[in-house]
C-alpha cells in the first residue's frame, strides 16, 4: 500500500510527476449498427510507485481504456482521440514498431483469466522467456534462467522443473503467478492488471494481491488496477477512478471515495456489495436497470435513467446537461456538494452498515 495519501480536494498528480497521463481519451468503434463510444473523454494520471484503481460495471470502458494504452485495439475500426503520454512519450500517434518495443517492456499487462490468456501450446518457461529475449536481446539460456528466477520470485515451488510445464499443468493460482512473472520479466515501469484476481478463489486472491504489492515495492512500478470488486480496490489502490458508460464519474483517493462517495452510481456500487460484518437482514440493493448502450448513450448524465436522485435536481438538467467532472477529488453529478453529503449520510450510509 502506498504511503502517499492525499487530502480531500487535492488534485491528482499531474505534469512531470505522473508516469502515465491520459487526457480526454475518446475511443470509438464503428460497427454496422453505428458508432460505439466505448470511452468518452476520460482523463487520469498515475505516478511511479502508485496504484490507480479503476472500477465500474461491465462495459463501462475500463478494459478498452487499458488496451488502448497498449495499442491493442483494432486500428481498422477504432478511432482514438486524446492523449496518452507514457513517460513523456505520446502513444496515440506512435507506430506499431514503437509500441512493440514498449509492450512487455515498459508497460506490461496482466489479464483476467490466466487459463485463456496463456497459450496452451508452449511451456510456461518459454512464454516468460520470450519477451525477455525480445526486449533485452538475451540468449535462450539467459532467458531460461531469468524465467526460473521470475517463477521463484512469484512463489512457484520447484521452479526449475515447473518451467518446462505447460499452463494446463498449473493450478489457477499458479497460472496467475506465472502470468505475473511474465508481465514482470522485463521490470516494467507500468503494470496494467485487468481483473487479475477475478478468476481465483479468495485465499489465492489474497496471495496474489500481496504478491503484486510486494513486487510493486521492489520494482517501484506504477500499477493500473482494473476491477469491479471494491474490496480488492480498497486494499490495493491509492487512487480510485469510477467509470460509467465510458466516462469517469468520480475520482479521488481510494479511502476518500470509499468513505465518502459523492456520486449516486458509486453509492449504488457500494450498496450492491456485500460486506463482512454487515447485517444479515440488510438486503443488498442492486442498481436498478441495466448499463446503457454505448451506441446510443442517454443524453445528459448517462446515469440518469437509473438514478434515484434525478428529482432532486431542478429542471431536467440530468437528462439534458452532461455534468462535468472537476479536477482532483470530484464527481460528475448535478447534485450540489451539500446534497451529495446529506443524501449519502441519510440514505446510503445506513444501508452500508
Amino acid at each position: 500500500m502506498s504511503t502517499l495519501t492525499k487530502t480531500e480536494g487535492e488534485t491528482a498528480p499531474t505534469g512531470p510527476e505522473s508516469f502515465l497521463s491520459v487526457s480526454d481519451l475518446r475511443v470509438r468503434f464503428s460497427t454496422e449498427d453505428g458508432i460505439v463510444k466505448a470511452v468518452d473523454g476520460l482523463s487520469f494520471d498515475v505516478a511511479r510507485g502508485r496504484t490507480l484503481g479503476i472500477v465500474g460495471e461491465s462495459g463501462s470502458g475500463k478494459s478498452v481504456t487499458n488496451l488502448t494504452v497498449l495499442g491493442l485495439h483494432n486500428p481498422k475500426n477504432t478511432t482514438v482521440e486524446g492523449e496518452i503520454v507514457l513517460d513523456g512519450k505520446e502513444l496515440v500517434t506512435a507506430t506499431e514498431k514503437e509500441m512493440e518495443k514498449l509492450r512487455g517492456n515498459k508497460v506490461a499487462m496482466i489479464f483476467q483469466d490466466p487459463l485463456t490468456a496463456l497459450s496452451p501450446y508452449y511451456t510456461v518457461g518459454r512464454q516468460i522467456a520470450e519477451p525477455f529475449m525480445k526486449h533485452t536481446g538475451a540468449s535462450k539460456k539467459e532467458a531460461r534462467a531469468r524465467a526460473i528466477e521470475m517463477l521463484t520470485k512469484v512463489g512457484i515451488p520447484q521452479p526449475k522443473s515447473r518451467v518446462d510445464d505447460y499452463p494446463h499443468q498449473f493450478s489457477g493460482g499458479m497460472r496467475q503467478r506465472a502470468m505475473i512473472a511474465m508481465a514482470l520479466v522485463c521490470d516494467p515501469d507500468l503494470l496494467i492488471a485487468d481483473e487479475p484476481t477475478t478468476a481465483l478463489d479468495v485465499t489465492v486472491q489474497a496471495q496474489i494481491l500481496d504478491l503484486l504489492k510486494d513486487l510493486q515495492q521492489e520494482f517501484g512500478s506504477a500499477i493500473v488496477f482494473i476491477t469491479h470488486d471494491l474490496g480488492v480496490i480498497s486494499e490495493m489502490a491509492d487512487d480510485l477512478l469510477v467509470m460509467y458508460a465510458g466516462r469517469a464519474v468520480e475520482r479521488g483517493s481510494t479511502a476518500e471515495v470509499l468513505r465518502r462517495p459523492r456520486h449516486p452510481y458509486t453509492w449504488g456500487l457500494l450498496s450492491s456489495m456485500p460486506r463482512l460484518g454487515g447485517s444479515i437482514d440488510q438486503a443488498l440493493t442492486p442498481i436498478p436497470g441495466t448499463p446503457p448502450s454505448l451506441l446510443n448513450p442517454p443524453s445528459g448524465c448517462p446515469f440518469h435513467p437509473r438514478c434515484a436522485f434525478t428529482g432532486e435536481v431542478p429542471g431536467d438538467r440530468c437528462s439534458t446537461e452532461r455534468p462535468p467532472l472537476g479536477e482532483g477529488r470530484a464527481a460528475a453529478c448535478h447534485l450540489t456538494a451539500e446534497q451529495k453529503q446529506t443524501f449519502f449520510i441519510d440514505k446510503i450510509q445506513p444501508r452500508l452498515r
Partner: protein
Amino acid sequence: MTSPIDIEGSGTSAAADDAPDRVKAVETKSHEGRSPGQLMWLRFKRDRTGVVSACVVILYFLVSALAPLIAKLYGKDPYTLYAQEPEYPFLLDDFAMPTGSFGGMSGDFWFGVEPKLGRDVFTMLLYGMRTSLYMAVVVTLLCVVTGVIIGMVSGFFGGRVDYWLGRITDFFLAFPQQLFFIAFMPVVTAMFVSPQDETPTYLRAVAITLVMWFLGWMGLARLVRSSVLTLREREFVEAAKVSGASPWRIVRKEILPNIVTPILVQATYILPSTILSIAFLSYIGVGFVEPTPDWGRMFAIGADVYEQDPMFMFFPGVALVVFVLSFNLLGDSVRDAFDPKTGR
C-alpha cells in the same frame, strides 16, 4: 463475472474486428426487449449478401414446387420424346444430336433439346431440380430429427446410454461414405423390388433417402450431444430439475430452444451437401434412372456429349453452381447472424 467488452474489445490489430461492437449491439437491442431470434433476424436482414442468397434459394424452391405449373404454361414436359412427335420432325440430326445451334435452343425449346431422345432440356432441369430439392429436404429433415434425438438422448442421459450411442455413432462414422452410397444403392433398391413390375420412382427415392439418411445424422448427433452436455450443467436446467420438472419438459422447454439455432445452421450445410450427394449417385449411375428427371443424371448425359453439345451441360451446371453458392452464402449469413463472433 465476465464482461463481453473486456474480452472482445481487445483483438489484435490484425485480428480484432467488429465483433465487440456487435456484441454491444446485442446488448443494446436486448435492452429494448428483443428475443435472440428477433435479433438474429435483424442482423440477418442487414446482411445484403444473405438476403440476396436467401431470395435465390427461395426462388429455387418456388420454381421446383411450381415446376408442373411452369411446364404447363410453357407447354412441354420432361418425359415426352419430342423427336418422336410429328410436330417436331427435325429436332435431331443423323447422329442423334440436336439439329439447331446451341444444343437446339429455340423458342420452342428454351434450353435446347436432349441429344438422342429429343426431350426438352428446360423442363428436364425444372423437374430435375424438383426431384433433388424434394429429396434433399426429406433427407435433411430425417437426418436432423435422428441426429437431434440421438444427440439429446446421449447428452441428456449420459452414462451407459451415452457410451453406447457414442460407439454406434463411431461405427457409422467409420463407413466410407461415398463407397457406402455406391455399394448399397443397388442392394437397397433390389430389396424393395418386385421382380416384374417397373421399379417405381418413389421406391428409388425411398432407397436413396434411406442410404443417405443412414450415414447422414452423425455429425448433428455429436453437435447436439455436446451442446446438451454443456446445457445440462447450466443453472436454469439445474433449476428446472430442482423444481421437479419432468425430463421431457426440461428437454422441450429448457434445452431444445437453446439448440435450435446451431441445428438450423447445421441444416443449412446438410441440405446442399445432400443435393450434391444425390446428384453424385445419379452421376455415377446408381441413383435415379430413366425416365426420372434428375440433376445428377443430366450431368452424366452431359459429360457423355460434352464435346458435341456443351450447351446441354451448361444450364444444369450453372444452375447447380448458383444454387450451391447461394446456399453456402446463406449458411454463412445465418451463422453470422446467429453467432457474430466467429467468422468474417
